[in-house]
């Protein structure tokens, strides 16, 4: 069985030779692997797969990896196969063991049982036999004893009567015995004289007979004669005697079997005809003898025993008693037994004659000489015959001792039999009993069951095997699939990690490289600046050099962009958290770009809703950079139309700005809003805590537009919507990428949104926190109560529209005019009564709505009209503008004019305007803050006028001229600033640098001291109004110096002015520097710029130099104002305070940080703040932070960059001035 199951598994193995054979030689290797594999299936496949895919990543080894894959496939296959084989073996073994044990034990127990049974079966007939023999012998012995007793009484029969009496007595005794034993066949007594007495029972007919011989023939005398002859010839006596009596007649008389009464007549029968009478011949040696006899009248053998009856003297035999018992009952018993338990039993004599069988086969055979005993081997019963033959063949004559044979499996015919034989060792009659039981009878069922069990077991195990194999297949399939997926996942992760790492390296490299590149670029630019300042250049050279300068700046900007980007990507960009005025920054930005746009015929409009908080916390430089990039991008692609920067505050309930959207434009907005609502709500939740606000912005232009498919990708690095634009517009495609990363970093999102009409609409939101207390501090004036009306005479329709909308929201009635004629019409209509002689009245037909507006204006009580006039409305190309001005002058009593100047408005125009008394001049573009200031200024002026109407009228104008100047200067400052940047379209870099500089400066609070080159108009206006309020008692002495210095500085920036190098004229600078070389260089540099330099060698000296001054300062403070005012002309400062300190950071004795701390400490009581600029060779931002921390104001790196130093110094000194 085991072989069978083993056979099946190799067959299945060979069943797929195509798959297995390719492994061929490495089969062993694979098996070795599998042996370890099976133990830790899961653990090992994962790293293996990983290794494989790991190689997969490396392209060079792809081939190798693929073969590896193949081999791993094979190994998986073989592993499966191995598991299946193991399962098969296991199940096979189980089956075999089960079967074996059940079979062995049942067989064994059955065998013992059957053995017992057989033994029992055989024992019982033998016992019966034994009983029969015993009873026979008892009877015989009893007969003998009785006979002896009777014969002794009649030992010497004297006469015939006594003889007869003896015989009668014997007959009675014998009958008694015979009757008591029903099983007896016959009892015979044979006297010496030849007289025979016998009782015979025929079992078949159930008759009993008394047989006796003729009494007359026998005499005592004869017996005496016989007696005498006795010793000499005993043998001869018997046979001769009997044969001699052949002629004797026997009589048989039937008897009643119970009573023994004579029932019939005696019939003579020949002797020996009926029964075998035991004669003296059977007891030749005087002892008992046994033998098996046959009779004619019975078909079963008879057992006869013979005993002699001795005379009292015990010397001679008187008679012979024979008892015959039929063995019939033994056969009967056997039959019964065999009926109950099947099988065959037979008894044989030692010689092999059958004595009894369990079958009905005859035991005797009829020969010519009468019936004779049959040999067992000749039995008519097949089984017995064959069993006897088998035994004879197996053992022959050499029976084992005791004749005991147990054979479990004898093949008789076509059947197996148990054969057992027992030897009954009687002294005179040894007998052999044989029992033959067919194996089938006992083991047949067992065998059959065993076979069935085996078949069931095999089929069950085969089923289990098949199911198990299928299960394994499924399981391993799933596992291997999972493994494969996992390996793939791991390899993907690996690849991603690598990609990320390489990207990181790239960013790192870029950051490093651009940093390295920036240094030489800065040098190039600096040297070019020096070259430009040089006088000895021809015009042509100058043009070329300035071109180079522009290109270098552009290159530097690009580098800055890359640096920004890589900074962001490498996660190094840290956003500042500082308060800043968002509106002001954006206004500055729009100012700057408007200059650029005017040339392009593009209108730049800033439209911030009122709910935007004034102060927000965040990184102003980065916010500005975002918008600068976006706006410059828009301007780049917009040839005509407008660029609008809209801003509003997230408010889910009120869509503050949506008023100006057309309905279909509103849809995406509202959709976006709802989409962001959850986000917004979430934001709002924690904005309750953090005061975070979501600020929405839009940059809307009317340019080329972007293809919708590119809306996402334009924010990728080096992506441009249309590659061909690079040629026409330039640019690297980095700008928007930086924007997006910055916006994301500020917690916002940016995307291009669908726009109605041409152009692009970029929408973004930023998450900025507002200072805790800075909520809605708008200081909004209630213009309505002042009854102000505004006439907007502006070119740009978009700006005008937005402005008028804002004004009307604030309850200021507004009129709009887009050109000169319209304006005159409105004026004419308004002041019809007073302007009769208007020369330019061309009778324009005004639209009805406009007319009604005008009428409503006329209804106002004591109104203040403010007319905002775009200078572009005047015809400047010819001289007509002067006449136009004259025309407007006629209304100057009733209205206030505010002029919108272009950045390139010529001085002549300005002078003319000023001469006419038009003092309110602002630069384009007009936005909310400027409008607010115009209105405020007008109202203040009116108020002042009302206050000091009569006496100070003339003085007021002079003062106003002053303040106006201030206003204008500041505007030009804007202008230059922006024009500096305007030479390049992408200005983020420079802008960020400049605003960073602003960021560094501590905001000291006082409006006056806040400097910065991005100083807004508002400050200036506030200053102006303040001065106004301070009134005429003193002309601010600083004003001229500041303005001049500012101018100088502008010049040094922009033009090749002759006095450019003296921009630091009159400044006192303390230089603390230990390195003599640097000290010298810096000194010369500063002196060349016109500054007075005091150089000291270390920090201690610097502190000393200052301390003695400050000590002196205490009591000179009163006069310092005057001194400072006069220092231009007089220069009589024996020890004046320094305007600025340049401080090296690393110095012996006391380093720059310590010195600064000491200086700031000593300043503490005085209220002074001398700007300290750090000079350091460390270019790390941490050093910068350290510098600012100890109280320094700015930071310069060595070697000193000429230009940067000048601008830094100027920005600082101007503030303190």
């Amino acid at each position, binding site marked *: 069985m085991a072989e069978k199951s083993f056979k099946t598994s190799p067959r299945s193995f060979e069943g797929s030779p195509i798959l297995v054979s390719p492994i061929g030689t490495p089969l062993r290797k694979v098996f070795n692997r599998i042996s370890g594999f099976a133990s830790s299936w899961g653990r090992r496949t994962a790293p293996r797969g990983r290794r494989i895919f790991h190689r997969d990543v490396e392209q060079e080894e792809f081939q190798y990896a693929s073969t590896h894959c193949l081999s791993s496939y094979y190994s998986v296959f073989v592993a499966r196969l191995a598991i299946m084989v193991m399962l098969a073996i296991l199940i096979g073994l189980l089956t075999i063991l089960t079967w074996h044990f059940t079979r062995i034990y049942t067989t064994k127990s059955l065998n013992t049982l059957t053995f017992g049974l057989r033994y029992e079966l055989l024992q019982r007939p033998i016992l019966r036999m034994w009983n029969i023999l015993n009873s026979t012998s008892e009877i015989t012995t009893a007969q003998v004893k009785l006979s002896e007793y009777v014969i002794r009484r009649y030992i010497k029969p004297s006469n015939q009567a006594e003889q007869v009496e003896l015989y009668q007595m014997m007959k009675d005794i014998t009958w008694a015995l015979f009757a008591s034993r029903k099983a007896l066949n016959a009892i015979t007594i044979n006297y010496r004289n030849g007289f025979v007495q016998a009782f015979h029972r025929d079992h078949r007919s159930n008759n009993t007979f008394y047989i006796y011989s003729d009494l007359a023939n026998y005499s005592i005398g004869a017996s005496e004669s016989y007696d005498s002859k006795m010793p000499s010839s005993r043998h001869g006596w018997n046979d001769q005697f009997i044969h001699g009596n052949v002629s004797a007649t026997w009589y048989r008389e039937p008897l009643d079997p119970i009573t023994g009464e004579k029932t019939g007549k005696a019939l003579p029968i020949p002797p020996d005809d009926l029964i075998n009478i035991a004669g003296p011949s059977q007891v030749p040696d005087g002892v008992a003898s046994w033998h098996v006899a046959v009779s004619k009248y019975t078909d079963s053998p008879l057992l006869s025993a013979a005993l002699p009856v001795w005379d009292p003297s015990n010397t001679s035999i008187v008679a012979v008693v024979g008892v015959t018992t039929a063995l019939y009952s033994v056969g009967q018993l056997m039959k019964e037994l065999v009926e109950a338990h099947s099988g065959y039993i037979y008894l044989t004599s030692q010689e092999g004659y059958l004595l009894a069988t369990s079958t009905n086969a005859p035991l005797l055979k009829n020969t010519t000489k009468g019936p004779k005993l049959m040999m067992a081997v000749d039995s008519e019963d097949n089984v017995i015959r064959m069993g006897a033959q088998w035994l004879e063949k197996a053992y022959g004559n050499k029976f084992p001792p005791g004749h005991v044979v147990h054979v479990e499996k004898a093949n008789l015919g076509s059947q197996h039999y148990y054969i057992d034989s027992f030897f009954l060792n009687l002294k005179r009659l040894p007998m052999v009993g044989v029992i033959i039981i067919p194996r089938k009878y006992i083991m047949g069922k067992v065998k059959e069951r065993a076979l069935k069990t085996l078949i069931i077991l095999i089929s069950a195990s085969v089923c289990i095997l098949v199911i198990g194999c299928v299960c394994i297949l499924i399981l391993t399939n799933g596992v291997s699939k999972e493994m494969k997926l996992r390996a793939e996942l791991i390899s993907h992760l690996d690849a991603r990690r690598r990609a990320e790492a390489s990207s990181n390296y790239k960013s790192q490299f870029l950051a490093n490289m651009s940093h390295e590149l920036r240094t030489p670029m800065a*040098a*190039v630019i*600096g*040297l*070019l600046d*020096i*070259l430009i300042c*040089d006088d*000895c250049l021809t015009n042509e050279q100058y043009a070329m050099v300035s071109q180079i300068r522009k290109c270098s700046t552009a290159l530097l900007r690009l580098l800055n962009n890359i640096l920004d980007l890589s900074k962001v990507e490498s996660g190094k960009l840290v956003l500042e958290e500082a308060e800043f005025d968002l509106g002001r920054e954006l206004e500055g930005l729009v100012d700057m770009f408007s200059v650029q746009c005017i040339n392009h015929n593009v209108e730049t409009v800033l439209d911030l809703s009122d709910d935007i908080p004034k102060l927000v916390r965040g990184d102003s430089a980065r916010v500005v950079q975002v918008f600068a990039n976006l706006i410059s991008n828009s301007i780049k692609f917009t040839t005509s139309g407008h660029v609008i920067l809209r801003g509003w505050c997230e408010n889910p309930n009120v869509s503050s700005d949506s008023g100006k959207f057309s309905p279909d434009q509103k849809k995406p907005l509202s959709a976006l809003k709802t989409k962001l609502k959850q986000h917004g709500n979430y934001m709002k939740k924690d904005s309750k805590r953090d005061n975070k606000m979501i600020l929405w912005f839009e940059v809307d232009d009317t340019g080329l537009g972007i293809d919708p498919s590119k809306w996402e990708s334009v924010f990728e690095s080096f992506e441009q919507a249309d590659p061909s634009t690079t040629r026409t517009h330039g640019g690297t495609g980095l700008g928007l990428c930086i924007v997006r990363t910055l916006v994301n970093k500020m917690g916002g999102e940016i995307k291009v949104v669908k726009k109605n009409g041409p152009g692009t609409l970029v929408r973004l939101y930023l998450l900025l926190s507002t200072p805790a207390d800075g909520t809605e501090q708008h200081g909004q004036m209630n213009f309505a109560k002042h009854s102000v009306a505004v006439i907007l005479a502006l070119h740009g329709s978009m700006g005008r529209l937005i402005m008028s909308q804002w004004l009307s929201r604030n309850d200021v009635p507004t009129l709009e005019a887009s050109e000169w004629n319209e304006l005159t019409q409105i004026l004419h209509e308004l002041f019809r009564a007073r302007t009769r002689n208007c020369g330019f009245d061309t009778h324009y037909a005004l639209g009805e709505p406009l007319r009604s507006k005008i009428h409503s204006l006329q209804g106002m009580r004591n109104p203040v009209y403010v007319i905002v006039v775009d200078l572009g409305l005047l015809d400047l190309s010819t001289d007509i503008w002067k006449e136009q001005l004259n025309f407007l002058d006629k209304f100057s009593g009733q209205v206030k004019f505010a002029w919108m100047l272009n950045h390139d408005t010529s001085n002549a125009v300005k002078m003319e305007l000023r001469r006419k008394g038009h003092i309110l001049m602002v630069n384009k573009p007009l936005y909310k803050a400027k409008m607010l200031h115009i209105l405020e200024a007008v109202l203040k002026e009116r108020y002042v006028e009302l206050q000091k109407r009569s006496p100070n009228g003339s003085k007021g104008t002079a003062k106003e001229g002053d303040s106006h100047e201030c206003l204008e200067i500041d505007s030009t400052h804007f202008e230059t600033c922006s024009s500096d940047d305007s030479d390049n379209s992408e200005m983020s870099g420079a802008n960020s640098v400049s605003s960073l500089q602003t960021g560094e400066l501590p905001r000291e609070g006082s409006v006056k001291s806040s400097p910065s080159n991005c100083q807004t108009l508002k400050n200036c206006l506030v200053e102006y109004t303040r001065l106004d309020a301070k009134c005429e008692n003193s002309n601010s002495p600083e004003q001229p110096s500041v303005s001049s210095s500012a101018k100088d500085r502008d010049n040094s920036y922009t033009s090749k002015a002759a006095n450019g190098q003296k921009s630091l004229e009159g400044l006192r600078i303390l230089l603390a520097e*230990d*390195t*003599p*070389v*640097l000290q*010298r*260089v810096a000194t*010369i*540099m500063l*002196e*060349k710029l016109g500054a007075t330099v005091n150089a000291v060698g270390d920090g201690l000296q610097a502190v000393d130099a200052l301390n003695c001054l400050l000590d002196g300062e205490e009591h000179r403070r009163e006069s310092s104002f005057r001194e400072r005012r006069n220092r231009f002309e007089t220069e009589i400062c024996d020890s004046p305070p320094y305007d600025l300190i340049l401080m090296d950071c*690393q110095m012996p004795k006391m380093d720059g940080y310590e010195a600064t701390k000491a200086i700031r400490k000593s300043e503490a009581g005085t209220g002074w703040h001398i700007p300290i600029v750090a000079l350091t*060779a460390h270019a790390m931002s941490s050093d910068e932070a350290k510098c600012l921390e100890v109280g320094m104001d700015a930071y310069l790196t*060595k*070697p*000193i960059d*000429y230009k940067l130093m000048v601008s830094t110094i100027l920005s600082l000194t101007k503030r303190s001035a």
Partner: protein
Amino acid sequence: MEVGQMQGRLVDYTKSLFMEGFLDGQFLQLQQLQDESNPDFVVEVVSLFFDDSEKLLNDLTMALDQPNVDFKKVDAHVHQLKGSSSSIGAQRVKNGCIAFRNFCEEQNIEACLRCLQQVKQEYYLVKNKLEALFRLEQQIVAAGGSIPMMEMGF
């Protein structure tokens, strides 16, 4: 020698100094600063540099000869040398100083000594070059010519 020829040689020589990296833009800035009020400014500054550097180099040699090298002190010296060399535009000295400082941070005496040798070498080289340059200039001035302004050639 003809003045014009000498001027040409000066220009070439200066250019070669820039090309070979002995000097950088800072030196040009120095020259820019020189004018009628400070006619010998460059020479003055450079000789200041020479004095200062020599002192520093001596200090450095001493400091590195000590059994227990005070790296902080060495670092400060090198820093100073770096500052002054960068101020006159002696680029190669400056670069040497940068490497020197790195080794100072690592406290690697052997490398420091090597760097010191290198810096010294660079210093003497640039000193020779500059002296030659000044000699040339003096010759030009003595011959009555004017010193041509450098043009940026790199």
